[in-house]
């Protein structure tokens, strides 16, 4: 058996906006690092006799994708997902890193939970895992969690995601205290009094279906508060899963004023409308809920014009026990790691998103916001690389789903564009040719 000395990706379209590159060329990986990139040129095999060579003609070679908002469910709900299965799904979707939210059981509000997650991640080795610690102990919204200790254990940000921080004073203190550790604060923006008992967007469809609605104002009011606190404290703030047109406008105006705010949306918010709920489809139940066509258009616009910085999946695995039930009783959320690339590719094909902007949204900006490595194909960097085939069409079937849970509204749909090769530290974590 010959020892593979490295990987040579040949003739791909190298899209590396961090280094202002978008040209055809080759990329050479050795010892887990990117050792040579030749946009516009070729890298010869040279003395490296035992390179594994991949013909990437017609494909995109991009920095490894980073999903800054996933739920890996471990510890506590391993029947839905584990760090192992979730990161395997990430690799299958083209991601080399994920940031996992702290709403596990127990909550990741202390260093021992953080360490447990990272040990599992290291053992699995399918993707980098960046744990997000809780803002408050138990995410109860009452007292600050130990940011310093959690950061030493490995967290990269804090959030009480899954629920809003109701108490404005606590949110202010979190922003301030996070400053000591340079941790970004991620807000799940929702006014719980307005959204209470709601199960879908409030509007024509909720009225038609007799389902309790969640008004768009529930999100916007809280975003308004978060922006006020971010500006007041001068601290960076990141808004998770933006779903409404007015939220995009609020963030845009705050950025124009110089507020240190960044924001993400999820593929379902630029792909589906509330009409997906018709027929009481619990696979279209999520929080924030799917909104109207006007909101979808505004989200797309926000991604194009920079009001929104990142696409994150909010990957939320649930078993059939939580989903094949009455609509009111069904859990919120859908899996997303394996559909993010094709759904974003639809924006590239149909809505004027440039491939470079797509890479910013799925890699460069998440790395920058979280302050982690990645998002670049510069030589000397760890070789986290994703190869995307923009033309590959496939039917997304339940059998294909790598995640332990299958709760996707996109099942049995024809999708186009997907990751075909995912490389982490120079090692292949997913190869579509092998499935």
């Amino acid at each position, binding site marked *: 058996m010959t020892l593979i000395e490295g990987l040579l990706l040949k003739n791909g379209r190298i899209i590396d906006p961090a280094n202002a590159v978008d040209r055809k060329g080759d990329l050479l990986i050795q010892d887990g690092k990117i050792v040579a990139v030749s946009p516009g040129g070729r890298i010869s095999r040279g003395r490296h006799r035992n390179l594994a060579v991949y013909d990437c003609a017609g494909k995109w070679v991009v920095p490894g994708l980073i999903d800054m908002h996933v739920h890996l469910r471990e510890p506590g709900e391993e029947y839905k997902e584990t760090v192992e299965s979730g990161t395997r799904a990430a690799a299958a979707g083209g991601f080399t890193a994920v940031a996992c939210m702290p709403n596990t059981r127990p909550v990741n509000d202390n260093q021992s939970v953080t360490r447990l997650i990272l040990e599992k991640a290291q053992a699995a080795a399918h993707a980098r895992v960046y744990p997000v610690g809780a803002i408050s102990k138990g995410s109860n919204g009452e007292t600050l969690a130990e940011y310093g200790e959690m950061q030493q254990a490995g967290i990269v940000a804090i959030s009480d995601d899954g629920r809003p921080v109701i108490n404005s004073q606590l949110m202010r203190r979190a922003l301030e205290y996070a400053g000591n550790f340079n941790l970004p604060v991620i807000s799940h923006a929702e006014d719980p009094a307005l959204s209470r008992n709601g199960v879908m967007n*409030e*509007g*024509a469809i*909720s*009225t*038609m*279906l*007799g*389902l*309790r*609605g969640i008004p768009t104002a529930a999100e916007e009011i809280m975003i308004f508060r978060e922006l006020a606190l971010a500006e007041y404290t001068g601290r960076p703030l990141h808004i998770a899963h933006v779903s409404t047109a007015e939220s995009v406008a609020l963030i845009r105006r705050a950025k124009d004023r110089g507020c240190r705010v960044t924001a993400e949306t999820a593929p379902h918010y630029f792909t589906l409308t509330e009409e997906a709920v018709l*027929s*009481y489809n619990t696979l279209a139940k999520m929080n924030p809920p799917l909104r109207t066509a006007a909101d979808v258009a505004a989200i797309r616009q926000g991604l194009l014009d920079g009001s929104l910085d990142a696409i994150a999946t909010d990957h939320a695995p649930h078993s059939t*026990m939580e989903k*094949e*039930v*009455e*609509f*009111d*009783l069904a859990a919120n959320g859908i899996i997303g790691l394996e559909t993010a690339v094709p759904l974003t590719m639809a924006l590239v094909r149909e809505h004027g998103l440039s491939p470079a902007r797509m890479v910013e949204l799925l890699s460069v900006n998440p790395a920058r916001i979280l302050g982690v490595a990645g998002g670049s194909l510069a030589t000397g960097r760890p070789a986290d690389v994703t190869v995307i085939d923009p033309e590959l069409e496939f039917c997304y079937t339940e059998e294909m789903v790598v995640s332990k849970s299958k709760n996707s509204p996109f099942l049995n749909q024809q999708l186009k564009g997907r990751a075909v090769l995912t490389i982490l530290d120079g090692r292949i974590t997913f190869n579509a040719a092998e499935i």
Partner: protein
Amino acid sequence: MRPDYRFTHKHILGIDHLSCDDIEHILQVAESFKEISSRSIKKVPTLRGKTVVSLFFEPSTRTRLSFEIAAKRLSADTFAITTASSSATKGESLIDTAKNLEAMNPDIIIMRNAISGSPHLLTRHIKTSVINAGDGTHEHPSQGLLDLMTVKEHKQRIKGLKLAIIGDIAHSRVAHSNIIGFSKMGASVTVSGPATLIPRNVERLGATVCLSVREAIRDADVVMPLRIQMERQNDALLPSFKEYAAFFGINRQTLEAARPDALVMHPGPINRGVELTPDVADGSRSVILDQVANGVAIRMALLYLVLGNA
């Protein structure tokens, strides 16, 4: 009605999926069944050997009894499962409950459930026919149909009439089914009540919103106050029953704005003196007891038609 019309529904989940022809046909069949209820022997063998199970997750006396009488008059065997709690709090999922029932081969399941869309869930998991006897705040199709039947009996038509529904539109499946049914059949439907109880975009169902009760009732052919529930006070949707009665209740004076021959309907049970004064409820314009009588005929028609397609 088209000459080649056929009733093809296996389930009755809501009026929203019935066509005008379907509704006409159901009303016709119900009229023909109504005669049976006036016989001295109120029974025909039409559904002999068929099994009808009613699965009620919410307390209900009238609707359950009405369906049961309807089934018995058609000679079906009836069984009732009533549980005050939802299946979830009982520990068994709705799908499991339904699958267990299905294993005993009933011909039809009549379900009432506090959660909107639960009968739709049922039809995705079992093969038995399902009739929705009220799901959450979504629909109550047999009530909508019996209301259409009652109005048609008195007015000989639906088209061109004005129906005013007053009260808690947001939480009323009866209002939903009636808005859809009456507007589908060519009536105009105006809804009124406290703005806190008017659902957003209710116009999309076919209703016009009018916040003045008096204006809503003006020239109406049918006035339908809805039952107002005590919980609405606790949810900060209403200050008090006293204020509700004064500003949104239907009494002799407010009724003056309606057409002189206007009908007064109510899905029951009535909070007398709150949404409706006793003199109006029992007055000459009230057709509330006709509604109850027609309920049996409509439910006979639904059982007969659905089983004809099972």
